[in-house]
């Protein structure tokens, strides 16, 4: 095999790992959409907020210190301790659970039986609120997130694959962080699937996704389920926030990863968990391979920015329910 082929394989692997991250973000959308029919515009901001909170705990930042200092003329910034990553993650998770509870209590509960567009608008409001609230709580500077996962090319993989492809090939270049992220995301997805298949709450989640009335009639409280779903979506957002934050710093642009989830959802369907996963992988691999095979040599590169949206557009035209979404049948 020529070296070119192995470079292609390397691009494919990198695409697969990027795809896992897209899947993770898309999964957060699907969970909430299935259970409550809400397209949660705030999913990306939730990832940003979770990452901010994590860094805040790790660094021992005092929440709202800018506000406190402005009002009382103090000079507070830090508690003076550093929290180990594990405990900081747990603490951030607790915050996301409280957040889920508040969302239900303050927003969803008052919008029961409203049109989807109203609920969607509410999540837009929520997104802007959280953006400002996150800034106020933790400050708006770009933050470094480090939970101890090594970063940079993985030498071991590079060394041990260098023999492939002859003298022009130096081994696969894969980022260690990406490899970790892939395994963590995969583990999370598997855990979620097992939870939803084999526990009573998992069954209740699926039941609510299928039929609200029937769910009520067997004793499922919709409100409790919504808190759980938003908490799980918060957890997924936290994991996504950690991975993307570790890669490129915690800053506002992190919330834009949600935009990458949109084409994934077009492809996989808004109601399908396997769809979100496979859709993410297809987009991830697709955009990297397209750039490698067609974009860079023929189109002057930078096709990664629009490839996913083009695929989504094609799907919107020819298969609007996505690969796995339930077929949309208009009732007349």
């Amino acid at each position, binding site marked *: 095999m020529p070296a070119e082929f192995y470079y292609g394989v390397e691009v494919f692997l990198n695409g697969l790992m990027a795809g896992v991250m897209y899947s993770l973000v898309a999964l957060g959308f699907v969970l909430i959409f299935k259970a409550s029919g809400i397209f949660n515009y705030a999913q990306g901001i939730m990832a940003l907020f979770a990452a901010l909170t994590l860094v805040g705990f790790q660094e021992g930042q005092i929440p709202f210190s800018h506000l406190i200092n402005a009002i009382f003329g103090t000079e507070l910034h830090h508690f003076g301790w550093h929290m180990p990553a594990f405990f900081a993650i747990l603490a951030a998770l607790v915050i996301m659970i409280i957040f889920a509870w508040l969302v239900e209590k303050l927003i969803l509960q008052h919008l029961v039986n409203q049109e989807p567009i109203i609920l969607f608008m509410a999540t837009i409001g929520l997104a802007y609120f959280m953006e400002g609230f996150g800034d106020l709580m933790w400050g708006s500077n770009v933050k470094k997130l480090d939970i101890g996962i090594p970063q940079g090319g993985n030498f071991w993989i590079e060394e041990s694959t260098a023999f492939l492809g002859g003298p022009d090939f130096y081994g696969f270049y894969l980022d260690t962080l990406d490899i970790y992220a892939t395994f963590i995301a995969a583990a999370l997805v598997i855990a979620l699937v097992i939870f939803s298949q084999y*526990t*009573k709450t998992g069954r209740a989640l699926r039941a609510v996704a299928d039929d609200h009335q029937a769910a009520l*009639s067997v004793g499922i409280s919709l409100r409790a389920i919504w808190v759980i779903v938003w908490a799980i979506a918060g957890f997924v957002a936290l994991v996504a926030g950690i991975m993307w934050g570790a890669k490129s710093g915690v800053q506002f642009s992190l919330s834009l990863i949600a935009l990458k989830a949109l084409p994934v959802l077009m492809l996989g369907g808004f109601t399908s968990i396997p769809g979100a996963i496979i859709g993410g992988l297809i987009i991830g691999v697709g955009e990297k391979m397209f750039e490698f095979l067609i974009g860079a040599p023929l189109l002057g590169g930078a096709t990664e920015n629009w490839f996913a949206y083009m695929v989504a557009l094609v799907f919107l035209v020819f298969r609007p329910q996505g690969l796995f979404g339930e077929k949309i049948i208009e009732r007349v």
Partner: protein
Amino acid sequence: MSMQSAQSAQGYVTADGRKIGGPVMEMENITLRFGGVTAIQDISFDILEGEIRAIIGPNGAGKSSMLNVINGFYHPQEGRILYHGEERKPLKPYQIAYQGIARTFQNIALFKGMTTLDNIMTGRLTHMKTNLLSQALWWGRAEKEEVENREIVEKIIDFLEIQTIRKTPVGRLPYGLQKRVELGRALAAEPSLLLLDEPMAGMNVEEKEDMSRFILDVNDEFGTTIALIEHDMGVVMDIADRVVVMDYGKKIGDGTPAEVRSNQAVIDAYLGVSHD
């Protein structure tokens, strides 16, 4: 079946020897309005322990609304509801499920993407107590509970003779079998009151006979109290102990099938309204 007079509020013995006890449910002067429409107008009746109580009447009479009042989907503007002798304050449907009232729906409401087994398992929810954390971590207690409840569900599957479709997503099942799975889900709750909204609607003769047999067996073997809505007069006469007749939101008859059949108001209502 029963030739007993309907008036004995403290129970009676049916012709086939089943003992009927005191009231499980007492509806007193229930009135339910939707804007200008009065779906239920000042209706009172009771459901006694162990009996099969039917609610019949033409389309739009308010029968489904009555079941929806009983299981808390609708809250009447007027009237009292007594459950096991105690006045019930307005509750959410899921809370009423925890009180032991299970139901099926006129338009089947199953979890279509889930298997028969999973659908019936959701019926066990009110009997499962482990918390979210232990489920998430699959600690001993949660697993044990899952297994115990699974056994009960398997018994119901055997009882309803649906072993072959255990793992089939119910959305793919024919209509008649879906109705049976829905009955299974309600039975799984081991309800003290079982509500069935037109359990035989849209079935062929054979399926109707099967369903009638299951309803009678449930009542006979588990002593379950059943309130059912049915369109088919013949079926009602066969399986019900007592019958409430509704028309335009009003109660126009109440008694044994024989009494109701000879009631002039009932005859008029049924002859005066064309049926589908």
